[in-house]
């Protein structure tokens, strides 16, 4: 009960319609009821639309981002202690009144969740920013000017062009892992525009010569 209510409020906090979570009691004998509930729930979700696209939901990507932090917040000790304590007290008092639980969750558990989520969000944002910086700056140091990962020639973390040099992509990978942002590597970087990028003297001379 406490968990369900927390979950509902957490969803709301993340801009997700809490109606997307159903908690029903169906006894083993109530097969017809089960059928009705599932049928009803499916059509309700249909009317809400895909996750993130419902009324008041901020779009798929945003919601996904919130959820990423939310899952982390849900594992955080602070949130879980608050939740556990409330569950314990509710159990002791025997007061399972929905209104009471709802108020208490809002007062005792949700703030911790919000705080944790925001701090996760911040952490994630910082990590992401740093990761983007890494991806922006470090590849320039690649001997082969690769922008989408190592060439395949590196051996033991050393560059193919100069075995004395470390492979910069190995470094990038390790740092992204430590920031838990390795998924960014999956993103394909746009092709480099060599017309503007390459200003080496030899090329310029060739171009000038060929223009003659």
């Amino acid at each position, binding site marked *: 009960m406490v*968990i369900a209510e927390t979950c509902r409020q957490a969803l709301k906090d993340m801009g997700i319609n809490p109606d997307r979570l159903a908690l029903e009691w169906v*006894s*083993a*004998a*109530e097969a*017809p009821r089960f*059928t009705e509930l599932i049928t009803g729930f499916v059509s309700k979700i249909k009317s809400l639309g895909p996750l993130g696209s419902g009324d008041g939901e901020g779009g798929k990507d945003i919601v996904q981002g919130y959820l990423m932090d939310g899952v982390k917040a849900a*594992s955080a*000790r602070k949130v*879980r*202690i608050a*939740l*556990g*304590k409330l*569950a*314990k007290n509710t*159990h*002791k008092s025997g007061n399972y009144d929905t209104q009471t639980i709802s108020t208490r969750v809002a007062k005792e558990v949700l703030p911790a969740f919000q705080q944790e989520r925001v701090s996760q969000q911040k952490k994630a944002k910082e990590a992401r920013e740093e990761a983007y910086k890494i991806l922006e700056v470090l590849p320039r140091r690649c001997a082969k000017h690769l922008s989408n990962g190592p060439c395949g020639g590196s051996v033991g973390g050393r560059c193919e062009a100069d075995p004395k040099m470390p492979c910069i992509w190995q470094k990038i990978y390790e740092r992204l892992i430590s920031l838990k942002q390795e998924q960014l590597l999956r993103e394909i970087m746009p092709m480099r525009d060599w017309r503007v990028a390459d200003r080496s003297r030899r090329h310029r001379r060739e171009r000038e010569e060929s223009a003659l």
Partner: protein
Amino acid sequence: MVEAGRSPNIEIITNAQLKALDGKAGQFVAQVHQKPRYIDEDICTGCGTCTMYCPRPTVDIYNERLDITRCPHIDYPQAVPAAHYIDAEACLRLNYETCNLCSQTCMAHAINFDQKPRDLSLDVGSVVLAPGFGRIDPSVLERFGYGRFPDVVTSLEFERLSCASGPTEGHIVRISDERPPKKIAFLQCVGSRDETCGNGYCSSVCCMYAIKEASLAKEHDPDLEITLFFIDIRTHGKGFDASRERAEAKYELRIVRARPRLNGQVDGQLVLKWATEDGESHSGLFDMVVLSVGLNAPEDAKEIAEVTGIGLNRYGFCQTSPVLPLAASRDGVYVAGAFQGPKDVPESVTQASGAAAMASELLPEARDTRTVSISYPEEDTDLEAGGPRIGVFVCHCGTNIAGVVDVEAVRDYAATLPDVVYSEAPMYACSQDSLKGIAEKIKEYRLNRIVVAACSPRTHEPLFQETLKSVGLNPALFEMANIRNQCSWVHAQTPEAATEKAKDLVRMAVAKARLLEPLEQPSVNVTPVALVIGGGAAGMTAALSIADQGFDCVLLEKTDRLGGNLRRLTWTIDGRRASEVLNDLIDRVNRHPRIQVFLNAQLEKLSGFVGNFVSTIKIGGQDQLVNHGVIIIATGGREYRPTKFYQYGKDKRVMTQLELEGALARGTDILRHIDTVVMIQCVGSRGQDLSYCSRLCCSQAVKNAIKLKELKPGIRIFCLYRDVRTFGFAEDIYREARKRGVIFIRYEPERRPELIKNGQGLRVRVFERILGKDLDIPTDLLVLSVGVAPGDNESLARIIKAPLTEEGFFLEAHAKLRPVELAVEGIYLCGLAHWPKPLGESIAQAKAAAAKAAIPLARGKVAVTPIVSRVDKDLCIGCGICESLCPFNAIHLVKVNKRRKAETITASCKGCGICAAHCPVLAISMGGFTDNEIMAQIHAFAGKEEA
């Protein structure tokens, strides 16, 4: 069936007949004659090559002669033993010494034409007769056009036609032109309730099976028009009325109350003529007529009776009495199933367990002297410890799954999943040869995680786990994907979506399987005491049976004396004085040294689990603790109080059937001024306060009507009813009542009889449909037939944490397979707490519950489920949240190195996982349902790329 085949203590002798039975109860010698199968069942793999090569077609008897098979064959894939046999009458080799093809092609060399009949002499303590039922004589069927018109079929033939693995693969076709019929008529009571063919009894099961067959046919072809012709609609089983009403509405079944006759054929269609109750005659054309044939006594009933020395009743069924429903007339010979009287599957299974109890009652001294136990090979820990090597088995389940889901596609898909090294799609994964196959594949491919995509783990997980154990794998290394109950069956209209869902479910199961870990299989000792709750007929019978089987028993009764509802009964259905039965039971209970009776006692609290329950019992205000291993619930029901109806409680001349019995028992003087009696059936039942039919009130009313007629022959009795449900042999007393002049008038629920007070007189107004008008019956006495209401089951259900049905009765674990067990292990059920039923059925059920309850008592040990919580003490911070939340007191704090740490009490833990879900530091994990396993399932749900 498979379970019986696997038990080392059950020897199955097929093709056998009992020739003689000498000796006495406890020391019988049975002479058994066994005819050869010509195929060695221990060697045969059931592969079916012999059937393929046999050149000699023979009629397929199993498929009601609607198909052909070959001499060597197996009746159906799940048959036990899962071995073929040779039809000795048709075989060319056996009759003409030619051919011999099959034995050449059999790779297993299982075919042996040198097998000879053999005679066995078996020492047995008791004999249980379960020969089933026989067929209605063809001459009876001929009266309904059977044999003359090919499209008149029996319900048994129809059943085969609608069976997915039957001769037409489930397509219902006319026999004459093999075209699907458009209009089908079901004729009820063929060979039942018909004295002209010698079967005066009601076969009990045909009304419900006709509804079932009609529903299945409609499911298959929604355009079918189906008409069912009933005399009375006797769907009196547990929950039957409700499912009949649902079926009638959902499938638009047309119900006609008439007994039609076949009037020839017009343009290939069959002509039926009938007269309805208002006297009008009708006729109709049908493409197919299904005869709902009744259940006859077995063909060899006489022979069985002669050999075993038991008595038969006038219809050739085994003679028993309502008080001893499972005992044949010779000591030590018991009966179960349809041979005792026509009955459905749940009741037959119940009786079978009951008969086992009777046999076990003879056994206490000899118990365990000749039993064999299975031993499993040691666990192959090396194999288990290696990286996951998953085998996936995707079951066809005949056409149950394969008819909707593309099983091959799912199998191929499974093969692409990570760590899956083998995948296969067996026809029936649970059949004995498939299980053998799984075991072989485990060895061949060194599989160490098994996924079966089939039916529900609730029913079949143990069976497959057994197979894992048999080859040295820990049973926890097993996962099921439920692609039948929760997929093919419920998404029949959308096969593509169902196939996609099946793939998803398999992917999720594989994802979990990759992370499964072996779990310890602990077992605990059983306290060899049974607690029986309820001191009525059922409770006392169960207690006596347990005690006779050699175990101690505590019997609780909440009032100050034993007897329950039996106290209020005056006569049993066969005319015995109920008080004799009652006194005999009470006397035996009180004298039995192994039974301890607590009066004024109620269960207050229950803790523990199967084998080790601890109950707090309140006896006259004092709490007492009782340790016991099992519980039998026999808390009974109560007579419904019809205070809303017919001035009951206000006018002394209005009473219930039980009150009438009670009054007559006190003296028959009251009859002096009574010349007319009106009885009204179903007062408060079947859709009023009680939604259901109570199964016994019709027989009770008829019984009392006859009693009244005996006491005062001139008395006029009117019985107003909806359906007369005197099923089984009770039909005899219904006919008897009619013969004695009791007048039966049917009413519809929309137009119930009314009570009209006319000065001092009572009048009952009822619509009489032959006359087509209201009939006013002045009466001296109005007797209301009321049903059985559930007792105070709710509070008990809360204490033992067991579910109730919508109607308020206890819900058994499975209606057909486990009819006297609750879902909670170690708790059993009998009597009116289960469902309203007559005395004989309660007694049989009490015996059955006693048999089931005796199993853990006799074994002395029960395995504890390994799905329990485990605390990682290094992570635990001793906050105590888990301890306070656990509903089973199965986790507590202990001091470890001066720090508080949580610890699970494994034997009490039910594996609910509340502790794990609330642990702030994620220190608790659940066996078989760890965080990682569930997370893996969620991720696998996400999509293919993350699989």
